[in-house]
């Protein structure tokens, strides 16, 4: 239990998807113009991460890892399918986002109206795929840990995008040098936020 909590806190602050690994940068920069839509995208990312990452974890442990197929037949013990990881993970992610989109559209049209446009985008959000690939590297002990990692990464991503959107809303009123307007100043803002987040990097939990 303690381990799960520490993974959660660590993945929000220390291993923040945006500031430590630059994952999900494209939609992060493109959709952070106002707080409301960025909150919607943040929630959608958490949602999809929490669904896909445990599925990919189970696939990794029970099918892809070396010797993982031994539960079918002892003869499969030497089989190592990990080279299939990329294709399998992305297929799960793309299929799940499509499913989630259809389910949300059917059961909650109001949520669909606010999230709908972002859901297809999420399939190609590097934060989701990155989450699964980091999960593969970190070798979590059980599904609980993998889920808490997914949750934490998602919350960290949402915090980052909402924060940036809030700053950009205020920045509308400032006088930025013409060549830096828009993209350039956003990069610098993210860099400064990243420097601030670096103070968590020594955090021991």
């Amino acid at each position, binding site marked *: 239990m303690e381990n799960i909590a520490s993974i959660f806190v660590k993945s929000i602050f220390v291993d923040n998807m945006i500031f430590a*690994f630059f994952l999900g940068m494209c939609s992060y920069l*493109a959709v952070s113009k106002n707080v409301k839509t960025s909150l919607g995208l943040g929630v959608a990312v958490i949602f999809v991460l929490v669904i896909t990452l445990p599925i990919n974890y189970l696939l990794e442990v029970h099918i892809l890892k070396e010797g993982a197929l031994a539960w079918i037949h002892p003869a499969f013990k030497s089989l190592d399918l990990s080279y299939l990881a*990329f294709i399998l993970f992305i*297929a799960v992610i793309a299929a799940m986002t499509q499913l989630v989109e259809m389910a949300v559209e059917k059961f909650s049209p109001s949520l669909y109206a606010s999230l709908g446009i972002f859901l297809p985008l999420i399939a*190609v959000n590097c934060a989701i795929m*990155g989450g699964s690939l980091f999960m593969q590297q970190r070798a979590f002990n059980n599904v609980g840990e993998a889920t808490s990692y997914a949750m934490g990464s998602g919350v960290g991503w949402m915090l980052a995008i909402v924060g940036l959107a809030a700053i950009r809303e205020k920045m509308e009123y400032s006088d930025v040098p013409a*060549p830096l307007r828009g993209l*350039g*100043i956003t990069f610098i803002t993210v*860099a400064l936020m990243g420097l601030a987040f670096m103070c968590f990097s020594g955090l021991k939990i």
Partner: protein
Amino acid sequence: MSKLISEKTKEVFLGPLSKNNPITVQVLGICSALAVTSKLEPALVMGISVTIIVAFSNVIISLIRNTIPNRIRIIVQLVVVAALVTVVSEILKAYAYDVSVQLSVYIGLIITNCILMGRLEAFAMSNKPWESFVDGLGNGFGYAWILVAVAFVRELLGSGSLLGFKVIPQSVYDAGYMNNGLMMMPPMALIIVACIIWIHRARNKDLQEK
């Protein structure tokens, strides 16, 4: 041959290098651009890998573009890209293991690199294979040169070397010069890209926003 290098093809190739650069103008593929640039070598490898993958996935998608059902096109594109990325990743593991360890998850993340999806959606789905190939090459090079530029500055100032070779002489260090450790930190990559954008847009006034 004259048809192969027509005006349009030339435009398709040269556009992404500057006026329509994937990173500084289209804002695609930022994640990996920032994460792998603390040293020059991984940045070069990443640039080459992405160029190859964009070019070939563009060709493949362009060849089968008329048979892909519209509703599931994203999944089809992702599977083609994922297959190519798997091949590149296995080749890197076999012939350049050190670099592939340094690049870690970012090789796998080429799959979700927005340059790929962006070019497949915007170009390969509606153009012939040869033009798509050229478009892929152009965008790959446009991406690679930004990566190399950022990595050049970061490695030079951050560890005083280029491609692993020391280029700042010892006498400079003796005189009190120090490597700037901050350059190795992730945020500096953002600032350097911002500087490149600044210079680029100061020279091309029509790209400025508002």
